[in-house]
């Protein structure tokens, strides 16, 4: 599969629109999901997705093949969304982990969340972009720590740390939303 992707990029670099269409069909859904999970705006996410593939069309010839095509594409999307956030000068809801409740309580709340998808969505929406990106790539795309680190341009330890914080924030948020059932 990886060789097929590399071949597609070479063809795109040569001006092959059909190769671009093939790449789009393969990656459009996951890349869109990644973008929309970070922006919470389907229309803007569609525009960013469009820009990502326009960039691929323009810069395919500069792809050196040192990384996977998937990682490269998600990296472009990652940086595009950061640009959007910069323009918005967005203020995140929180990066601090509240002290109330413990992990066991929150883990119980996680179970209850199975029937409460909307709670999960809301809680993911409250994470900072760094945390949200990490958890999206880990759980939507099932990427390795190394792949996520490459996309975000940070060491693997940073990704592990972001995921750890994201997990705590999510579980705490869920425990608070599910009727205080598990909150001490």
């Amino acid at each position: 599969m990886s060789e097929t992707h590399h071949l597609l990029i070479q063809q795109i670099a040569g001006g092959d629109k059909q190769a671009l269409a093939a790449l789009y069909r393969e990656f459009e859904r996951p890349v869109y999901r990644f973008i929309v999970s970070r922006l919470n705006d389907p229309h803007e996410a569609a525009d960013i997705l469009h820009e990502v593939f326009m960039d691929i069309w323009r810069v395919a010839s500069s792809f050196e093949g040192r990384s996977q095509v998937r990682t490269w594409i998600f990296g472009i999307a990652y940086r595009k969304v950061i640009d959007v956030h910069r323009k918005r000068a967005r203020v995140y809801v929180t990066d601090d982990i509240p002290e109330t409740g413990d992990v066991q309580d929150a883990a119980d709340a996680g179970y209850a969340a199975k029937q409460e998808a909307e709670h999960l969505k809301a809680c993911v929406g409250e994470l900072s972009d760094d945390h949200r990106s990490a958890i999206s790539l880990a759980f939507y795309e099932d990427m390795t720590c190394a792949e996520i680190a490459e996309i975000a341009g940070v060491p693997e330890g940073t990704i592990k740390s972001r995921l750890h914080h994201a997990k705590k924030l999510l579980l705490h948020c869920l425990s608070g939303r599910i009727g205080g059932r598990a909150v001490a």
Partner: protein
Amino acid sequence: MTRTREDIALDLPFHVNGTLSEAERAEVDAWLAEDALLRAEHDALSVIRAEMQAEDARSPGEFGLSRLMRDVGREGSALAAPPTPSRTWMWQLAAAVAVIAFLAQSLFVQRDTGEAGFTLAGATGSADMIVSFAPDATEEQIRLLLIGLDVEIVAGPSAIGLYHLDVLEGSDAEAALAGLSAATEIVESVEYAQN
């Protein structure tokens, strides 16, 4: 077990998504067998991942592809555009355009029929495409589709609900037709107009 509990906790998301190496996985498994709290965290993460995977994000799909092909085509034609004329040619061209504009204006004044200087939708005339929209398509859906594909309604509706569309100057008619054809929830039929 060579790593600390904290190290193992940091690896839980990757145990859940199945991307750890065999050795790392075995190490985490061993911890999970003995540590109820880690197990609870692991289970909670599994539920979160399952929920996220089950989410259905409606991506732009073929609409997005049509838009992409249209814009890629534009960039391609911009790159393939003839080189900018030299300054000498520019002056000659500007002079010619000025003469043509003067003559055209003179003729227009002489033959002025008193009609408005714009065309209303509903007026007859040539068009690029003819479409009919699905009965349950909303105005917003139609508007977004037409804007996205760079086409505009120039006439219609006819008695049987047909609209005449024009592709905006510089836009790709083929991509617009493909985009309209792909929008099966909004467009019932579409074809090139026989002008």
